[in-house]
């Protein structure tokens, strides 16, 4: 299965508040998670090798949904 995912012991850093994001859960690239400190929604950009990398998530767009 070609999936970039990993369970991390190292912490990531929130690009908004610079807070630490614990990564005990499995993360998948492109997944959206919330920063536990500032509640900003973040995209998991990279999970392989070292600490996970996050960026700010895009705003919900008009055509998003089910």
């Amino acid at each position, binding site marked *: 299965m*070609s999936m970039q995912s990993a369970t991390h012991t190292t912490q990531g850093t929130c690009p908004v508040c610079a807070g630490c994001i614990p990564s005990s859960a*499995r993360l*998948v690239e492109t997944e959206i998670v919330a920063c536990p400190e500032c509640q900003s929604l973040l995209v998991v950009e990279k999970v392989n090798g070292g600490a996970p990398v996050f960026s700010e998530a895009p705003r919900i767009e*008009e*055509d*998003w949904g*089910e």
Partner: protein
Amino acid sequence: MISLAILHSTIRKEEKLLLDEAARRGIPVKLIDIRSQVFDPTVFRADFDAALERSVSTVKGDYAVLFLENIGVPVVNSSTVARNCEDKFVTSLLLGRNGIPCPRFAMAFGPEQALQAVEALGGFPVVVKPPLGSWGRLLAKVNDEDALDALLEHKEVLGTPPQKAFYIQQFIRKPGRDIRAFLVDGETICAIYRESSHWITNTARGGVARNCPLTPGLRDICGRASAAVGGGLLAIDLFESDGGLLVNEINHTMEFRNSEEPTGVNISGAILDHCLKMAKKT
């Protein structure tokens, strides 16, 4: 060994459930982030047998599905099913044409016409919805003419072109819940009540999911609604009205994170089974 592709953008809980289920079964899955893909028919090579469309963006998902269908890859759901479900006006027209009970509805493009439509629907309150949209966003329960005028003026001034097509639906009084039924190829596999004291009961808006027993009546109306839009993998939203069940909307890339636990049904497994079946047909 049949292999599948999942067309995705943002990975949600549902995609994780699907990937976990595929891993348990040993089904090879290729993840295709459609935002980073070039859909060039002279270059693209499909190294999988069927694709499941799970893009959170309807527009991008539509184009990806059309592309794969045109190079001969079966996609779940098809572009036809997507088109029939993603636009509430199209869905309502198909339900009406096939004699499936649904709330009364109308489309109008101007305030005067919208008011005429409201009167024909039986008066206020009504619900004004964007024809394209999801998660209960931008729905408005409109109780009187003043509110209708204000809402439509805001849409005219601030809205994108799709927001300027006014889909107006009869307001149905619900018993604090609606029903969401999950269908695979016309068969209802499970259903939930979405309970909320708010008139919008989407779980994305805080509605709580509880198991809804499948009755012959529910199975029947859902089966007929599925046939009306082309079948496939569907989540059908229904109202319990004084006159019986009414089909409100049909979703073609359904979210089900809150539904496997209360129903006890492995929805992700049923989705994968259907994809494998579609792949075997080719």
